[in-house]
């Protein structure tokens, strides 16, 4: 087949084909996440891959609206989109299809979203997400549940060196409301604060006729990060009601998170204001050492479901599966998820025995595949190695007696003969 013509079949930039080795690892990570979501009582919903543009846009901020893939629907003549974010879809579903369900909703989802990106940024346009939404609760306990659950997922994935970074959009908005700056300046300041660019912030403020107090409050934002002590510093900085309420809210959430026993994983950053436009309260992102992108992000969005006609306080978050894959890929358990247990290599003329043993192994829970192709021992072994199959089972041949099979560990070719009757017993333990 090597000799046949190779068709050049490129795929667009920013998307990828995941071959079995990687896909297995992604599946493993998704399963771990799903397990935690289930344990916390969340139920899955499945959202569609297409939405009408004007419906989707209700729940999207300007930034995501610009990054949305759009095209014409030939059936309806309306503009359609591939969702760039699943949360507004969940908001729509809850507001329109689940109105009669009792609150709160505990919903989880897995899916892929598409977002346009700058060319040559090396970033992916396709984002694999797994997330939850907790809708109908405005209490700090709901926010704490989200944070604690995100930490639980990261722990269950075996991550140790990570932080959940809490922010609160209310603190920033309180300061900006009190400052009363023109919209253009506010947008520029937002960008500079997001980058913690102290000198750009000072430069922008110099030109504005606002009091030194206000300038001091805004200039303080990029340095308001660290542990819980940040709250005390922040309280001295901002005196307006909204900012104070935000700080109280964080303190309440932190107290509950202390009961969950996760305080050591937390940092606070009040200058972190780059959350999505629909966020209204506590926001958070998960960071793993050595990785630039956040592995999860989320927060409170109390006004979103109202846009679909069903006012309800809500919070939620999503994991970026490919970011987790980068962080975890080399770990032994994740690495192991790409392996399979047995390749059955039959040297006998009759296939009956081989098929019966294959089925028996599957019943015992071993992933087992038949080689089927007629080739010699060495080539079968090479195939097993390439396919990450741990053991080859030889049926027939000279390595064992007629009532035995020969099991070879692919890694070191160490082999052992096992009685077939033994193999089929319930308490059989693999010798290699």
């Amino acid at each position, binding site marked *: 087949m090597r000799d046949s013509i190779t068709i050049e079949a490129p795929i667009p930039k920013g998307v990828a084909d995941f071959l079995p080795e990687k896909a297995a690892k992604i599946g493993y990570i998704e399963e771990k996440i799903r397990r935690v979501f289930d344990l916390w009582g969340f139920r899955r919903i499945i959202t569609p891959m297409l939405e009408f543009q004007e419906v989707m846009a209700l729940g999207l901020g300007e930034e995501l609206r610009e990054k949305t893939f759009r095209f014409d629907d030939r059936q309806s003549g309306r503009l359609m989109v591939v969702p760039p974010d699943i949360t507004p879809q969940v908001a729509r579903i809850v507001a329109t299809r689940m109105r009669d369900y009792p609150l709160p909703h505990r919903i989880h989802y897995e899916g892929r979203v598409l977002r346009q990106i700058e060319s040559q940024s090396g970033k992916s346009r396709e984002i694999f997400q797994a997330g939850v939404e907790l809708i109908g609760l405005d209490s700090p306990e709901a926010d704490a549940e989200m944070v604690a659950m995100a930490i639980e997922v990261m722990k269950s994935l075996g991550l140790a*060196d*990570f*932080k959940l*970074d809490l922010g609160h959009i209310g603190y920033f908005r309180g300061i900006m409301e009190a400052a009363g700056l023109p919209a253009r300046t506010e947008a520029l300041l937002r960008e500079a604060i997001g*980058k*913690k*660019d*102290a*000198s*750009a912030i000072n430069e922008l403020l110099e030109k504005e006729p606002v009091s030194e107090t206000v300038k001091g409050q805004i200039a303080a934002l*990029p*340095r308001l*990060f*660290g542990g819980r002590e940040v709250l005390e510093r922040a309280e001295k900085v901002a005196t307006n009601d909204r900012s104070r309420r935000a700080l109280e809210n964080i303190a309440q959430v932190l107290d509950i998170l202390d009961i969950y026993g996760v305080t050591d994983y937390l*940092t606070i*950053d009040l200058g972190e204001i780059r959350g999505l436009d629909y966020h209204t309260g506590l926001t958070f992102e998960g*960071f*793993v*050492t*050595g*990785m*630039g*992108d*956040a592995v999860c992000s989320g927060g409170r969005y109390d006004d979103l479901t109202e846009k679909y006609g069903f006012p309800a306080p809500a919070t939620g978050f999503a994991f970026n599966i490919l970011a987790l894959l980068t962080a975890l890929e080399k770990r032994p358990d994740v690495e192991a998820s790409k392996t399979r247990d047995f390749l059955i290599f039959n040297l006998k003329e009759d296939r009956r025995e081989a098929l019966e043993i294959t089925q028996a192994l599957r019943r015992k829970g071993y992933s087992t595949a038949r080689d089927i192709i007629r080739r010699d021992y060495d080539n079968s072994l090479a195939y097993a190695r390439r396919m990450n199959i741990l053991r080859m089972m030889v049926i027939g041949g000279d390595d064992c007696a007629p009532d035995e099979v020969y099991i070879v560990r692919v890694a070191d070719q160490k082999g052992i003969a096992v009685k077939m009757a033994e193999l089929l017993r319930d308490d059989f333990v693999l010798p290699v």
Partner: protein
Amino acid sequence: MTDFITIAIPKGRILEESVTLFKKIGINCDELLSSSRKLIFENQAEKMRYMIVRATDVPTYVEYGCADLGIVGKDTLMEQEKDVYEPLDLKFGYCRMMVAEPAGLATDDDPSSWSNIRIATKYPNVTEKYFAAKGIQVEIIKLYGSIELAPLVGLSERIVDLVSTGETLKQNGLVEVETIAEITTRLIVNRASLKTKHRRITEIITGLERHV
């Protein structure tokens, strides 16, 4: 390696100034100044690691988290718009990014009347944004060096480039017409590093801040 702090630094003048500055906060990295061809240096005792990279690559290494911190000119940051924190202006390496043109053209040229111009530059993104904001159409020719040559041989009418003393411009018969931005060297920080190593990084930022 996760308890190490890794800093990406470009070769050249920024490197020398950085070594001097870090020494003031008790971080000794003199070995970076040796003429060695090594690209990575490690100080086990101080748990610091240094990477020598091209200036234009510094934001990339930091954005992807290969380095926790980086030292780089504001011009590179403006051009690339990477997702990194820029918490500190280190104040050295001052220059201006400006529009320049041949002295002959400048005598009766009025920038407010420009409508469709051709510009050679190393900074196509900054140039495009700057002129788009002014409502001027530009045709941009991306060059990698010796930008001053372009107007002399008719490749473009004007250039956008960095100027520190203005001597190169003068010797090539060019004059400055507009300043786009004042440029200094910045300390940049990877987002995850600031959260996961916030104590050590905060120490470095506040320490450096006292000496700039």
